Structures are given as C-alpha cells and as structure tokens.
C-alpha cells in the first residue's frame, strides 16, 4: 500500500510518546546531574579537609621549631639543632600544600593571611631562631618577648585560616544539602508528570486501539463481502488467498475478481488501492462493480482500464488516491489471455519452463489520462496465472530486505501446482518471511488452465 490514512491519527500518539520520552530524559538527566554535582562537592570538601589537616600539621611543626630552639638554648645539644632543621623543612612543605589548596578553593583572604603567616615564620627564623642557634646565650627575656610576639601573631593568622576553611566546608555542605533537596523535589515533580502523562497516554492509546479495531472489523467485513466467490470456469481451476496485515492500521484495499463474461470468456482482475481502512474497502467495491460493468460492454482490457480511469477520476475526488490494476480476459477454450496492466507488476504466469512476469502496459489509475496497451499471450495446458498485490513483492524479512519480483517468482515456481494450495503456500511463505509481522495486505489469485477436453 502506498499511503496510510489510518496513520493520520498517530501523530497524537507520537506527540504523547515524545512528551513521555522528553520527561523521562529530563528525570534521568537530572539524576545524573545531581550525582555529578554531589561528587564535585564531595571532592571539594575532601580537598578542604586535606588543607585543614595540613594546616594543623603545619602549626604542630611550628611548635616543633620553637621547642627545638628552646631545647638547644637550654642544652646546647646539636640534636635539637638538627630537629629544628627537619621541622623547618617539613613546615615549608606543609605550607606549600595548604597554599595549593587555598588557591584551588579561591580563598583569597585566607591565602593572603597564609602569606603573612609564612613571612612571620621566616622573620622568626631570621630574628629569633638563627641568632639563638649561633649564640644560645643571648638575652633571654628580650628573645622570649619577641618569640611570644611572633607566636601570638602566627597563631592569630592560623586561626583566621582555620576559620576560613571551616566556613567554606560548612558552606559546601549546606550547598550540597540544598542541591540534594532541590533535585529531589525536581525529580519527584518530573516523575509525577511522567506518571500522569503515562496514564493519559495509556488512555489515549486504548481509545485509539479500540477505534482502529472497530474500523478494522468493519473493513474486513466489507472486504469479505466484496471478495468474489469463485465462479466455476470451464477448463480452469481457481484458487485464492488473502492475508491481512498484522498492524491495526494496515487493513487495506486489495481486491480481486473472477467474472464470467460468456460461455468461453472470463474477466480476471486484481487491484491494489492506495490507502487503507473503510474508505479503501468501500473503494474496492466501487472498483469491482465498475470493472464488471465495463467488462460487460468492452472486451479489450486496455479499453477497460482507460474507461475505468476516466470514471475513477470523475468519481474519486481525493487526488492522493490511485489504483494499480491488472485486468485480463481469458478465453477458456483457446487459452488466449489478453491483458492490460496499470502499474501492477505482481502478475505472473507459471509455465512448465518457468515463471514469466507479465509486463506493465500503462501507468497506475487515477494519475493521468494515458492509453493502456493490451497484450496477448497464449497459455498451455497446466499453465497457471498468478496475480498478487504488492504485499508479495514488497514483503520484507526481519532484516528489512524486500522479496522483490525475483523472490516472488522463485516462490511461485517452488509452490504446489494446485492453484488453491499455491495461493495458500504463497501467503504462508510471506507470513513466515516477515515473522508474522506483515506490514501490508496480500491478495493472491491463481488460475490454472487446461486444454478443453483435458482431465480437469
């Protein structure tokens, strides 16, 4: 089938689905964003804790330096001088570590204070520590006072840095908590929206499916009513099969007919209407009875198609509807088949030598006013005319590959020669090929001819 009018109702479903997916994406993306934010905050907090530990260690090393100097002035033991050197080196390393962390946290004021602190420690070393190391017997009272002054100032600056780090840590903790709360509310909201949309969507879908099922039932009822009962033809065996598409939307306008025009002549035709649903089914009735009416007056298939084309254009106002059709007039005595094909390429003759595709002799109906050529072939005893709709050649396997004409001809050649069995087998093969998920209707009409006075 070429277009899908039933699908016109699907945009609603598509919009709902898009909404659902979008909401789900927002909810999921929000969760990932929260995780990322929290991870970043924890990382920052971890770095602050490291800086706090490094600061405390630095203060301990500062006291170690002072105590080492005190020890040296009291005992003159070089051990204390070495201890002082080690503490001073470790102090500088820790100072650098704290500085890096403060810089990373953009704690500018604390960083400036740390620089002051470092400058005082260096001053203390040059004014107190080194003079005492070189001359431990210097004036104790004055040294003690200066030492105390340095110590006081350094402790004050250290307190400031400590407070700055603690404050930043608390700020991060608060911001993390707020972020978690905000995201929890946001996600709850989006999930509630998702749930609500899902409920509405389910209701919408149920209604849609119900409507489509109703329409499908109506359409199938109409199609069954319009499909031909097999009229016995002399010297012929007739078989047919019909496979409805698995989709609710896809019940289409495939129609075929075998109509006896006289004692020896029969009109056979198959057509495929673009579009689906009740409109297409009703159109198949129009086609069937119009062609029958024309066939009673005309015997030339090309002329039949031309007249039908005119009637179709005048009757059907929808410019997007068109029909592919094969019409043949079979002489059951001479086994002559005169046919015309309006864009209908699924027409074959199975002969003893192989399967032959019957040529298209004009454009599809409902598009333009063009003459349709009539062709004539002669059948032989046991030859089978196989007419199908495009559900045969357009059939796709699960990988999406089309069967096409070659595949169809292979299936026809390898099927049972008995027409009804042949039609049934073709339908079964297409169904198996598509994994029971046929996208399109498939109509098959098979007519095997016999020499008059033959066995059949």
């Amino acid at each position, binding site marked *: 089938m070429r277009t899908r009018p039933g699908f016109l109702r699907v945009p609603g479903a598509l919009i709902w689905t898009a909404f659902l997916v979008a909401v789900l994406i927002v909810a999921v993306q929000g969760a990932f964003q929260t995780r990322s934010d929290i991870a970043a905050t924890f990382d920052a907090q971890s770095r602050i804790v490291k800086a706090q530990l490094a600061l405390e260690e630095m*203060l301990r090393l500062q006291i170690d330096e002072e105590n080492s100097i005190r020890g040296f002035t009291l005992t003159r033991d070089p051990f204390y001088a070495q201890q002082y050197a080690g503490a001073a080196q470790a102090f500088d390393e820790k100072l650098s570590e704290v500085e890096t962390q403060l810089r990373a946290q953009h704690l500018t004021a604390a960083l400036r204070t740390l620089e002051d602190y470092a400058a005082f420690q260096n001053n203390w070393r040059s004014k107190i520590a080194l003079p005492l190391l070189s001359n431990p017997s210097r004036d104790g009272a004055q040294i003690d*006072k200066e030492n105390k002054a340095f110590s006081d*100032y350094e402790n*004050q600056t250290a*307190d400031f840095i400590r407070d700055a780090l603690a404050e930043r840590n608390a700020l991060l903790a608060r911001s993390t908590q707020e972020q978690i709360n905000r995201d929890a509310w946001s996600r709850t909201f989006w999930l509630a929206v998702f749930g609500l949309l899902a409920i509405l969507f389910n209701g919408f879908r149920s209604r849609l499916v119900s409507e489509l099922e109703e329409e499908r039932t109506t359409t199938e009822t109409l199609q069954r009513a319009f499909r031909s009962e097999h009229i016995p033809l002399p010297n012929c065996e007739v078989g047919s099969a019909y496979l409805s598409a698995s989709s609710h939307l896809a019940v289409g306008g495939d129609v075929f007919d075998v109509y006896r025009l006289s004692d020896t002549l029969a009109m056979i035709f198959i057509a495929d209407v673009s579009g689906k649903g009740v409109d297409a089914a009703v159109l198949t009735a129009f086609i069937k009875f119009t062609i029958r009416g024309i066939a009673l007056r005309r015997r030339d298939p090309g002329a039949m198609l031309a007249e039908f084309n005119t009637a179709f254009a005048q009757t059907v106002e929808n410019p997007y509807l068109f029909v592919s059709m094969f019409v043949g007039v079979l002489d059951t005595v001479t086994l002559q088949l005169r046919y015309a094909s309006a864009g209908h390429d699924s027409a074959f003759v199975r002969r003893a030598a192989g399967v032959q595709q019957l040529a298209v002799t004009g454009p599809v109906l409902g598009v333009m006013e063009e003459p349709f050529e009539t062709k004539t072939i002669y059948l032989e005893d046991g030859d089978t005319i196989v007419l199908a709709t495009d559900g045969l050649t357009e059939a796709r396997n699960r990988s999406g590959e089309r069967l096409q004409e070659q595949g169809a001809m292979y299936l026809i050649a390898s099927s049972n020669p008995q027409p009804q069995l042949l039609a049934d087998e073709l339908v079964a093969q297409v169904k198996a090929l598509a994994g029971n998920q046929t996208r399109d209707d498939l109509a098959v009409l098979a007519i095997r001819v016999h020499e008059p006075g033959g066995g059949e």
Partner: protein
Amino acid sequence: MKAIAALVLLVCLLPSAVLADCRVNVNAHVALLGTTDDPDVFVWDSRFRLRDYEGGTFDRMQALLPHAVLARPGTRATVESCVPNFVQPKYQEKPEDAVGIVITSGPLRGQRGWVLGSAVRPMLLSSGRLRVRRRLR
C-alpha cells in the same frame, strides 16, 4: 529623691558595653595562662597598648614590646579592674575584656598591668581549696 532618679537615668544611659559583665570580678584571685601552645602572657603597662598590640600590625606590635613584660604561665594575680569587650583581636570575631591586675607571685610580684580576658583563669578559691589550705596554714 532627685539624686536617686538621676542615678537611675545615668544607669539607663550607660552604653551596653560598659554594662556588659566581665568574665572576672574585681578582687578575684587569678592565674595567668596563655594558650596551651604558648602559655606565657604579656602584661602591658596600658590597656590601650594591649588593645593596639592585639589589633595592630606586626610592626606596631614590635614597637610596643618594650611596654610589656612576659609573665610565666601560672603567675598569680589579683584583678583590680576590668573593661569588658575593650580589645578587638585582629582575627577574632568577638572582642575580649581588658583586665587590670596586680601580680602576686613570682619575680614580677607587685607589678601592675593589663592582660587579655582570655589569659586570666579564675582560681577555685572561694568555694573550696584555698580556704582549706588557709586553714591548714
């Protein structure tokens, strides 16, 4: 009657800082102790220098040092006066009291001066131990 009313009015108009309580009372017996890391205590000859030392730059601090003596931790003293919230240390949020003391023990005994409120540790004398010790003596 007028004098009482004037006194009440004066009390009402006093700034809240003056009315705020000091951590120690006048005549309290105390011990001087800095921080655990640096327990020595500066005793200043003026509460204004004490304030300048705690709130000023390092250079200013150094210049002030000749006006201070260094008391060893545990030095006993008696509180003579107290100005609440008089000192605002540079890196602290809350101000501290300036406490006027007279040193009662050690080599600086008899010397008067000013110390930070946080360097003054009240001794548990009134309720127990000192009385017992006095009795023992």
